[in-house]
Each structure stands twice: as structure tokens, then as C-alpha cells.
């Protein structure tokens, strides 16, 4: 059910935007609207997680081992980026840096445009936009077939905000708490990993 809701919402937004149905006066405020909508969404998710005693028990029992999840997500994404670079002919170091964007398209795109070149920046921007869209679409299936812990994996750094709602709906409040923490850790890692991989 949630998969259809997210697919329909993104498709409707894309179609309205591309068809020019979003008034110019609204377009300039889309950033601010995103912030407000995210605030409302995160407030609701916060209530759900706060009410879930299971979520806190999971976190308490797991302790520092919970960091294995963001570590695995980052390592897997960089490895996937290197594999993609090998396939399409992008220098492997730069391809790893694109993978280290972890869905944070605005930051990784700007950083790689400065650290490497404009084309790599554009590739990072676009591939991380696609990662976010893909995450929105496949997270329910990932939670179902790969386990609820893996629900945090597709979104990468974005499970701290945009994709957290999808994780919460697909895998429950305890998985959402883990995903939020994972997203926060990964958001801190993106600028470090992108810089380390992009610089010679």
C-alpha cells in the first residue's frame, strides 16, 4: 500500500513540475515548503517512535553494534559505485566518491563539481537523485525480503529525513529509529568520505 502512495506522490509531483502546473510563485518557495512538510512528517514519526517501547529496547540492547548498519551501508554503496564506474568507464576513485554521496544529492553533486569536475558533479547529483527515488520505491520490498534492518539501506543518508517515513511505514517504529540514527551517522560521513575519495 505505502509503495503505491509514494510512487503516486512522486509521479504526480514530477508530472506537475515538468508540465508547468506548479505556479512560478510556488516554485521559488519549494525549498521552504519541503522544510515545513518534513517538520510535520518528522514530528509524527517522533510521536510513533516515542510511543514504541520496543524501539528503545532494541536500541538499548544493540548498543554500539548498531553502527554496523551505517558502516555496512557506506561500504556497500562505495563498492557499488566502484562497480558502476568499472561498467560505464568512470575512473574508479571518482566512481567511489559518487557512491559515497549516499543519496545526499545536493551536497555530493556540489562537492564533486568542485573537487573533480562538472561532469562528475552532475553524475553524482543525478545518480543520488535516482537513488533517493529508487529507495522510496523499493524500501517496502527490501524490508520484506531482506529483513527490517535492511530497510535503512536503500535510503542511505536520506533515512534521516525524506525516506524515514517510508521506512517507518514499511518496517515499523523500531526500524525507523535505527534508520534515523543510521541516516544521521551517514549524513556526517558523506562530506568526509566524498573528500577522501575524490582527492588524489
Amino acid at each position, binding site marked *: 500500500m*505505502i509503495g503505491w502512495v*509514494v510512487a*503516486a*506522490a*512522486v509521479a504526480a*509531483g*514530477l*508530472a*506537475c*513540475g*515538468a508540465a508547468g502546473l*506548479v505556479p512560478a510563485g510556488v516554485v521559488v518557495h*519549494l*525549498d521552504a515548503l*519541503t522544510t515545513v*512538510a518534513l*517538520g*510535520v*512528517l*518528522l514530528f*509524527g*514519526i*517522533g*510521536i*510513533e*517512535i*516515542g*510511543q514504541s517501547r520496543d524501539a528503545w529496547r532494541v536500541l538499548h*540492547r*544493540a*548498543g554500539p*553494534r548498531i553502527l*554496523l*548498519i551505517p558502516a555496512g*551501508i557506506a561500504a*556497500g*554503496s*562505495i563498492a*557499488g*559505485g566502484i562497480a*558502476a*564506474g568499472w561498467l560505464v568507464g568512470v575512473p574508479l576513485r571518482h*566512481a567511489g566518491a559518487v*557512491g559515497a554521496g549516499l543519496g545526499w544529492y545536493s551536497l555530493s553533486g556540489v562537492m564533486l563539481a568542485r573537487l573533480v569536475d562538472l561532469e562528475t558533479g*552532475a*553524475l553524482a547529483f*543525478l*545518480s*543520488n537523485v*535516482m*537513488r533517493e527515488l*529508487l*529507495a522510496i520505491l523499493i524500501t517496502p520490498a*527490501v524490508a520484506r525480503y*531482506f529483513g527490517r*534492518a*535492511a530497510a535503512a*539501506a*536503500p535510503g542511505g543518508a536520506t533515512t534521516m529525513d525524506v525516506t524515514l517515513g*517510508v521506512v517507518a511505514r514499511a518496517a515499523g517504529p523500531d526500524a525507523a529509529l535505527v534508520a534515523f540514527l543510521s541516516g544521521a551517522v551517514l549524513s556526517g560521513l558523506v562530506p568526509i568520505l566524498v573528500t577522501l575519495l575524490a582527492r588524489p
Partner: protein
Amino acid sequence: MWLVLAPFLAGLLLGWRGELSGAHTRAARGLVTGGVALVLFILGARLGTDPALLRHLRVLGGEAAVFALLTVSGSVLAVWLLRGQVERA
């Protein structure tokens, strides 16, 4: 950062105190479902109204799709391989 964290922490505190009625809890659920749809609609609209993105899409779209697919697959596979450690935790 705080624009994201503050409402989340406020919701956590409110939920943790356990003083919300059933109606409020149902309202929070509606907030999440409606919020997901709204955030994603705006995300789509932002992408659809970005001419630079649409231009890049034509030039680099295929390569970017390969990157998106393999980075997501790598992350899912890594967490799945670590599932023994994660579940033990």
C-alpha cells in the same frame, strides 16, 4: 540540522511521555502518511521544475541509473551480509 531535529525530538518527547489519547495517536499516524505523500509530491515537483536536472538526465541518465542501482544494491547486500551481527546485537 535543527530544523529537522527539533520537530523529531519534540515528537519523541511527546510520544515518550505516554499522555496522548487514542485520537491523538491516530492523528499522528495520519500525519505520517499524509506527510510522506506531501514530502514526496514536493520532491517530485522540485525535480520536475529543475531545468538543469532535466538537461543532465538526457546526457547522463543511463550512467546515473547504473550508479543508483548498484549503490543501492551494494548497501542492501552489505547490511544483509551483516545480518547475523546485527540480529545478535
